[in-house]
């Protein structure tokens, strides 16, 4: 299977030369070279904002390059729109889920190219073909007639993939497909990718997780600031080299060392917290300066738990205490005033005012505190935001840029930065590094650790077990809405956690 690639005269199916794409004020692509061969998994690496998503949007016909050439199967092409690209055999799974919530799974898969007769959708055919595709993806349990908004995030990702596969694609582009997937789902995804490449289909794969690239990738191209800094490296290039190509410097360690600063009295005490259908009888505590990590599968109720502790959801039973004082259930305001902060799971829909500038997003939870007699102080807000932007190494540093124009990782920094402004004493982090690049990730880890060193308690939810183990002082494992294990992070290893966590994924719960 791999032999073809090793042949020196193998002609690439796709070749990009000197591609440039400028947005007002930003040169997103500044001379990109890329070469992809049939049947290979070609990984794109780059920091947040390096231009990966922009590059694939150029390939998918969404953006037109300002200059440079795109050769597809030996011919120079200029796609007029997404449909032209799909017709030519390029299918794309975008970073932002491009699904329509009120259409069924089958309708989403075939949106824009429905099997039809005289304008009528041939629903039987469509459902049957969807079922086939889902089966080939190993997800026959997803009912093709189910509305997409009723699917969990992982299910949505599968539908996105099914949609890409519904075209006769020669090249499949995946922009961070694993970001919303749990461990076992990623394995399944790789399985599918291998089957596709075996049929000679080329895959462009984007991810910030090095171990994935090592496992699935054949060759790697690295982007930095819209430029190709290294092309066609073998996938087993040492991480340190890849990282230095991406960042222009080397990052020695990923997880900062633990500092034994945890206090003795509990900062947060959660007692027998329950919400019907989500989680039951959860008790936990966090001490000042301690990082507590919660591991679990997608759908195990961790986000709901965090939101309930934070007051964003009202518990059916149980109490939440901060410093021994009970918080009003279902009242975020009082939680924030008491010193809690949360970086929610879906930053775009839950945390950001996309059209507003960075500094207004950063001060969203604290502008009242910075105000005098109800009058806001633009000067102080900006100064504070600039300070945080500096310490988080936000790109761009200009805090008056609208958040919408930032890359995903930098948006996440804005969200975390929001809680570094005020007197936050307990920080709840839900998937804080989802879609965040290696460099920024290390910075975020450092920030979180520094916060803990200052005495802030952190409660962290992450689907990446190494992250929980590496960052947290104490680990809690959650399964189907219950806490099944609590241990010090040094006493437990990844395999144990995975064993505890596995009890059937969310997707298996539904009858076909």
């Amino acid at each position, binding site marked *: 299977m791999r032999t073809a690639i090793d042949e020196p005269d193998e002609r690439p199916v796709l070749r990009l030369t000197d591609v440039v794409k400028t947005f007002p004020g930003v040169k997103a692509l500044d001379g990109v070279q890329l070469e992809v061969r049939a049947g290979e998994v070609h990984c794109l690496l780059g920091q947040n904002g390096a231009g990966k998503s922009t590059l694939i949007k150029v390939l998918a016909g969404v953006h037109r390059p300002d200059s440079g050439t795109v050769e597809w199967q030996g011919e120079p092409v200029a796609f007029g729109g997404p449909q032209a690209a799909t017709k030519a055999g390029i299918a794309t799974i975008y970073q*932002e889920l491009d699904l329509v919530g*009120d259409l069924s799974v089958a309708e989403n898969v075939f*949106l824009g190219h429905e099997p039809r007769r005289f304008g009528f959708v041939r629903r039987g055919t469509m459902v049957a073909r969807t079922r086939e595709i889902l089966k080939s993806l190993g997800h026959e349990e997803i*009912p093709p007639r*189910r*509305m997409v908004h*009723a699917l969990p995030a992982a299910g949505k990702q599968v539908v996105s993939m099914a949609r890409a596969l519904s075209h006769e694609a020669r090249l499949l582009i995946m922009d961070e497909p694993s970001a919303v997937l749990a461990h076992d789902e990623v394995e399944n995804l790789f399985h599918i990718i291998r089957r596709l490449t075996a049929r000679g289909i080329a895959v462009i794969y984007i991810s910030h997780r090095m171990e994935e690239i090592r496992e699935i990738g054949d060759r790697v191209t690295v982007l930095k600031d819209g430029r190709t800094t290294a092309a066609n490296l073998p996938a087993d290039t040492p991480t340190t080299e890849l990282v230095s190509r991406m960042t222009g410097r080397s990052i020695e360690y990923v997880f900062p060392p633990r500092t034994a600063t945890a206090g003795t009295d509990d900062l947060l005490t959660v007692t027998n917290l329950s919400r019907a259908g989500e989680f039951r009888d959860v008790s936990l505590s966090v001490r000042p300066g301690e990082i507590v990590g919660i591991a679990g599968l997608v759908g195990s109720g961790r986000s709901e738990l965090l939101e309930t502790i934070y007051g964003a959801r009202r518990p059916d039973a149980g109490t939440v205490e901060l410093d021994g004082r009970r918080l009003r259930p279902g009242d975020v305001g009082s939680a924030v005033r008491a010193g809690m902060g949360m970086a929610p799971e879906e930053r775009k829909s839950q945390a950001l005012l996309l059209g507003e500038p960075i500094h207004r997003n950063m001060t969203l939870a604290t502008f009242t505190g910075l105000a005098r007699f109800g009058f806001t102080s633009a000067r102080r807000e900006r100064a504070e935001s600039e300070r945080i932007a500096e310490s988080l190494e936000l790109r761009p540093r200009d805090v008056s840029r609208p958040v919408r124009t930032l890359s995903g990782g930098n948006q996440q920094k804005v969200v975390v930065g929001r809680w570094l402004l005020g007197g936050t004493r307990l920080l709840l982090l839900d998937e804080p590094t989802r879609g965040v690049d290696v460099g920024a990730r290390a910075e975020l880890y450092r920030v979180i650790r520094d916060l803990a060193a200052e005495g802030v308690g952190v409660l962290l939810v992450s689907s990446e077990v190494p992250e929980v183990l590496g960052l947290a002082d104490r680990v809690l494992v959650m399964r189907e809405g219950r806490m099944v294990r609590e241990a010090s992070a040094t006493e437990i290893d990844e395999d144990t956690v995975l064993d505890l966590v596995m009890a059937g994924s969310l997707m298996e*719960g539904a009858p076909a």
Partner: protein
Amino acid sequence: MTATALETGRKRLWAGESGESVSRNLILAGVLVALLVIGAITQPQLYGDSAWVWSNVLSILQLASVVGVVTVGMTFVIIGGGIDLSVGAIVALAGVWSTTLATQSFGAGGMIFTAIVVGIAVGLVNGFLISYGKLVPFIATLAMLVAARGLAASISGKQTQISSSDLINGIASTKLLGIPILVYILAAVAVAGWVLLNRTTFGRRTVAVGGNPEAARLAGINVKRHTMLLYALSGLCCGIAAIMLTAQATSAQAAMANLYELDAIAAAIIGGTLLSGGRGTIVGSVLGVLIFATITNLFAINGLSTEAQNMVKGGIIVAAVLVQQFRFQSVTRLFNRKP
């Protein structure tokens, strides 16, 4: 598979698959029946006469027919992420244009043709301004409202124009199998709308265009052209409604169909259409129109004064929506995390 997993699985199945909208519509039907029962309780002597009850039901249906047709078009526009404030004005313009002496000289066929062509043409202008001129739908159709009423007044010279076509006027006065033709027209438009929305690529793409225009664009749908077609469809419905209203009034006038835009939007929203686009049902919209017509009828048979009517009507609207809300709180909580 454990029992609980199965259970949550079933629950989920119910939550998806438009089961939500089905039971939402059942509740609306319940509200409708409740209103009829209130009528029967308050006017027992009238409701004692079964012939009268039948004629009353027909009169409600007839009252609902014109706005109903307009609402079907409006439902498409709103599901597609837009809004059409000009529907009343289009009905008036189409009605006035089709009853000019010149048009009437071509007979009923010419009148119907004119009304429909005018409706579609104005709809296309709306659609063009919105898709290609990039105007906010609210502003574009508001401007069209003002302009179309002005044009209608200028064409009619602000006179009421009598329709002398017996064929047209007969649409309002003729019954088939005891049911007025107007009611058949509403039924036909509603069924056609349902099929269009649920069974054709056009309808499914409408949901996509309204629910996630970016996704629709990435899927290769020509969002601009589709948006134009949606407004044209609304215009077509207005053209049909213009003929129906002209037949009912045996005349047309620049001021007719006043504020139909509010009635149609309100009916669609009560029927479960999301004002932000991407969700809605034809059945719900028609039920919404019927509820409003039944309220009006209820007031008429009880001889309520206009001011009392208005006060009660406001209350009924709120109550009708609240009933749906509370029934669905549990289901919607799942989907809608916003407060």
